[in-house]
């Protein structure tokens, strides 16, 4: 492998801190990723040198800020290979992006008796907004299950799709299990049935293929904070034809063409969906993160991640009584597990005292927990700055915790 992980780690200042007197082993990347210095610098540069409101200014700072904000849109467009900048809508995060589509697409296209499909593998953020929308529109809400390995039941999906299906929403990668869904195949299936498709890319855009045209996704949503960018910024990609046909989501400044008491007309894309002063610095920081990734060969970054992941599977499965839930045909970056007779919260807490940060609980995927018949799991999740030695620290910490818990 050509990448030098030790050098990469130096670019992320937080990775050299210690926690509870132990060096930090950060394995909670599916919750949020750490930021390279270049992202922090881009934010400082913005506030120190050209902070201004954008788009309608008549002054120099406003031009600089507008330019940087819109250049960032272009960087993001290139990263996911969208056709046009105007297909890139800025939101607070994946959750807001999905709510926007559920609301506006729902209003425009979902009638009583229509159907909306999600999967049992979804994060609450790609589940609840559709459930709420179906309730509002009087549509039927269908949930496609997964099998004992964490793979979607594609045959059930195929049977569920019909001429009343308006939209299918699924995550490319499950945040709870790490399952990689066969997105191209699924999208083709849905399109053949005449349904639109939203891909929740919160856990995929940073780890696997992310070409929206190749996938042929109608909508594609992700969060900046999970791809080494700032908090409070997310992206909704939508095919222009859909975005054009959808009503605006929120009303206010920016999304307006003309306002009067009698009649209000809306601005062009993407501004029609960006009401109010946006998180101006958000896209600037996110573009800095993408520029950082683009310094490397993406395939090499990922080959490294996969290497550490495989090592993790190996080492963890050697621990007595440890059960791994991530068993899908293809997976990435995430290992979900439990140890027999041990509560996930106790294990997570004791890992923390040893400087190892993992997440425990239901990971906002209660339907998955229900299907697995557990209350929660321990989840270790990787980024490209993780190493095999992080896995060794995890394993050592688990062993010590089990001893403390009387195992």
């Amino acid at each position, binding site marked *: 492998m050509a990448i030098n992980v030790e050098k990469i780690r130096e670019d992320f200042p937080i990775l050299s801190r210690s926690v*509870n007197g132990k060096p930090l082993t950060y394995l909670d990347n599916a919750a949020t990723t750490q930021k390279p210095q270049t992202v922090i610098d881009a934010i400082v540069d913005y506030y120190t040198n050209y902070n201004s409101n954008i788009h309608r200014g008549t002054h120099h700072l406003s031009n600089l800020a507008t330019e940087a904000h819109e250049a960032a849109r272009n960087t993001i467009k290139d990263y996911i290979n969208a056709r046009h900048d105007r297909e890139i809508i800025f939101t607070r995060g994946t959750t807001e992006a999905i709510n926007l589509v559920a609301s506006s697409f729902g209003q425009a296209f979902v009638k009583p008796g229509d159907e909306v499909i999600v999967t049992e593998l979804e994060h609450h953020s790609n589940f609840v907004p559709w459930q709420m929308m179906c309730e509002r529109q009087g549509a039927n809400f269908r949930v496609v299950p997964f099998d004992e390995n964490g793979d979607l039941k594609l045959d059930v999906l195929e049977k569920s799709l019909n001429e009343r299906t308006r939209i299918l929403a699924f995550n490319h990668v499950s945040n709870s299990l790490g399952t990689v869904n066969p997105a191209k195949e699924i999208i083709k299936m849905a399109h053949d049935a005449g349904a639109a498709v939203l891909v929740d890319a919160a856990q995929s855009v940073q780890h696997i293929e992310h070409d929206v045209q190749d996938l042929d996704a109608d909508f594609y949503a992700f969060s900046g904070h999970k791809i080494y960018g700032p908090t409070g910024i997310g992206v909704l990609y939508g095919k222009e034809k859909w975005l054009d046909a959808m009503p605006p989501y929120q009303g206010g400044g920016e999304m307006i063409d003309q306002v009067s008491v009698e009649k209000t007309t809306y601005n062009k894309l993407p501004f029609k969906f960006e009401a109010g002063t946006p998180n101006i610095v958000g896209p600037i920081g996110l573009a800095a993160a993408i520029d950082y990734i683009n310094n490397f060969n993406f395939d090499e970054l990922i080959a490294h991640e996969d290497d550490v992941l495989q090592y993790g599977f190996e080492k963890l499965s050697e621990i007595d009584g440890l059960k791994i839930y991530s068993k899908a045909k293809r997976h990435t970056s995430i290992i979900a597990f439990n140890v027999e007779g041990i*509560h*996930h*919260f*106790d294990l*997570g*807490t*004791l890992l*923390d*005292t040893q400087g190892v940060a993992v997440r*425990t*609980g*239901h990971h906002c995927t209660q339907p998955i927990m229900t299907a697995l018949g557990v*209350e*929660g799991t321990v989840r270790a999740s990787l980024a490209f700055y993780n190493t095999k030695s992080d896995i060794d620290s995890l394993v050592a910490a688990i062993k010590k915790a089990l001893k*403390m*818990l*009387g195992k």
Partner: protein
Amino acid sequence: MASIQEIQNSIIEDFSFLPEWDERYAYLIELGQKMEPMPEAYRSEANIVRGCQSTVWLHRECQGDKVYFKADSDSLIVKGLAALLMQVFSGQPAEQVFQADLTFFEETGLNKHLSSQRTNGLMAMIEIIQSFAAKCKNGEVYAITEPLQKSTTT
């Protein structure tokens, strides 16, 4: 019986002998493991206090001017925390429980160290304990679970 403040002080002292967090957790786990098992009848839906990650069952009774509690949890660490709460509050006058200023979490550093209180349901437990004490004081409750049994708490 020692007062709420005396008991808190002795907990704070116990923790001060355990400078490492490893040791403190080991102590909590031990407290959890040693806690008297909760009668099956008390594991009712009405007694559940839901944390984000773990479940606590909290049985509460009011006898005369005193309140009695029993607790259990699926997490050993949370059970250990609950055990501390039982030490502090169970068997104390309702008036005192209601007015108590909970100092030991801060003084031991447990509040900063434990994952956010929302996660472990601790705050919820404390709230329930204190509002139950208020109701007991006002004569609004006797015991909250059915069937009403003679108290087994000490």
